[in-house]
């Protein structure tokens, strides 16, 4: 710690590297607003849903990009539109349903009516109202409906996953992901039709970046999470690859499950329970699938809004919805493939007990994030330390590293200008 005041008036990020992250990076309101602008509203593709959620014309799902309410809707021409859920008239969030089917959208306040593309079609009393031989009211002569549609987002879909961006100058989704991360993306979303199994939601009282970091952190699963270390779902001594895109913003943690049990890496680990046996181990009835091509787990972080989970037979998307610097909503969509056998679907549903807000493996993540945020609040001038495996940034063929977090903050410092 080099600064002596808890609330530094002119906070400076000490040093050039990213192995020390100041606590104030997680708590400042002004930084958060800049992050929304730089990461959620410009230059980045954000997750809005899965094609399987809106199979038929008019099907829609209401969701969020950053803090902005948007609607993902299936167009009758087969495409997907993403439009902002804010009426062009006087700003009301008009869509109250989380999902449904609509031929068009209208705002109940003054009945302005929009097509599913977001074009303004109907304005009541646009040409005025006749009364006593006179026309009263009406919109000004220069009013053009083409100028007052809903804000339309740019849309990209790949493998059944839908992304959107407010920034129409954004690079293609493929360029955004980069070739390395794209290959892992395509491994999970390989063109097979998806089947939605259901949703889980939690509000986690911590900074949104902590969730990106948590899934860029291969250090903790083999230590914090007993099930992981005892049943060998992730261990420091297993075969692994930690990879990033060229910017360090996206990453994939790829693992090959070993047999679990005692070893050097479990010495002194308080969470390791050598004699733990499940009474009913059907919850861990893992069967390898052809599309894995080897790895038993591949956890991807797509910056800023998405985590893609493959862990044994459980697959999900996890969406980050920030709410100020101190909280974010975390929305899980568990899915399978349309051609899964009933046994495989049951397997995926059973293994889902490991994940989510009550999960044997995941519940801890929310807890440690919350407690970290409490720690940061105590003294903004303090720093975190991310020096496992050194202070540099680069992909490595093992998982005893914090390089992915260092990579993310290298990108963060560049973009935010700190």
């Amino acid at each position, binding site marked *: 710690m080099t600064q002596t005041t808890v609330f530094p008036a002119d906070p400076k990020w000490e040093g050039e590297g990213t192995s020390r992250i100041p606590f104030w990076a997680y708590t400042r309101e002004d930084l958060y607003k800049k992050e929304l602008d730089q990461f959620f509203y410009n230059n980045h593709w954000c997750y809005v849903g899965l094609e399987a959620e809106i199979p038929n014309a008019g099907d829609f799902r209401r969701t969020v990009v950053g803090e902005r309410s948007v609607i993902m809707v299936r167009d009758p021409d087969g495409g997907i539109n993403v439009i902002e859920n804010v009426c062009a008239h006087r700003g009301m969030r008009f869509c109250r349903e989380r999902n449904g089917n609509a031929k068009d959208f209208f705002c109940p306040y003054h009945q302005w009516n929009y097509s599913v593309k977001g074009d303004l079609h109907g304005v009541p009393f646009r040409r005025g109202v006749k009364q006593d031989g006179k026309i009263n009211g009406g919109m000004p002569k220069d009013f053009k409906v083409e100028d007052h549609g809903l804000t339309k987002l740019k849309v990209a879909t790949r493998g059944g996953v839908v992304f959107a961006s407010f920034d129409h100058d954004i690079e293609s989704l493929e360029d955004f992901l980069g070739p390395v991360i794209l290959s892992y993306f395509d491994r999970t979303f390989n063109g097979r039709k998806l089947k939605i199994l259901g949703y889980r939601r939690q*509000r986690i009282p911590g900074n949104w970046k902590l969730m990106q970091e948590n899934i860029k952190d291969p250090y903790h699963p083999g230590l914090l999470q007993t099930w992981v270390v005892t049943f060998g779902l992730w261990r420091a001594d297993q075969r692994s690859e930690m990879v990033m895109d060229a910017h360090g913003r996206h990453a994939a943690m790829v693992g090959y499950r070993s047999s679990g049990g005692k070893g050097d890496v479990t010495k002194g680990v308080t969470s390791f329970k050598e004699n733990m046996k499940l009474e*009913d181990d059907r919850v861990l009835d893992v069967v390898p699938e052809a599309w894995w091509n080897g790895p038993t787990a591949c956890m991807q972080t797509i910056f800023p809004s998405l985590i893609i989970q493959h862990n044994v037979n459980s697959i999900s998307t996890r969406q980050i919805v920030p709410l100020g610097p101190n909280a974010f909503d975390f929305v899980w969509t568990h899915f399978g493939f349309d051609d899964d056998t009933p046994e495989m679907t049951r397997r995926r549903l059973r293994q*889902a007990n490991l994940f989510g807000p*009550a999960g*044997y493996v995941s*519940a801890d993540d929310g*807890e440690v994030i919350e407690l970290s945020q409490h720690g940061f609040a105590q003294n903004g001038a303090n720093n975190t330390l991310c020096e496992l495996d050194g202070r540099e940034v680069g992909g490595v063929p093992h998982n005893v590293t914090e390089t992915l977090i260092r990579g993310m903050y290298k990108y963060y410092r560049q973009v935010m200008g700190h």
Partner: protein
Amino acid sequence: MGDNKPIKPMPDVALGREVHDLYARYAACLDHGDFKDWPDFFTAECVYKLIPRENHDRGLPLATLSFESKGMLRDRVFGISETLFHQPYYQRHIVSGVRVTGEEAGLVLAEANYLVIRTKKNQPSEVFNAGRYIDRLARVDGRLLYASKLCVFDSELIPNSIIYPI
């Protein structure tokens, strides 16, 4: 003139009392923190699901917790005491509207509303999980046990995590 409605059968008062008592004892067990006694409220091949209302109403199969035997319940109890890292908290179940809704294949169908208040140490109490129980009860050796318990919760946005049983 006169009322042509059929005479309703007398409600089974004894059964109603027994069901109320079961729900009260279940809540007391969980609120006291006697989680090792929780599986004893269930039959051996039981079903326990904690499921958000949106999944239940839409017919989506994913639950937040989904157990298929007393063994899985015991594994959860082990997880709570030995493996799941969490800030410990008190729970307080408020159960109301307990009613027998019918009978099917020898099982008693029952439902109730529940509200769980969570209090973390040194923190204010909060509404944690509100929902309803949709249950099937079996009589085993004279005692009523849960053959199937569905906790369908309105509080879909979970305040971080759920560790203890509902």
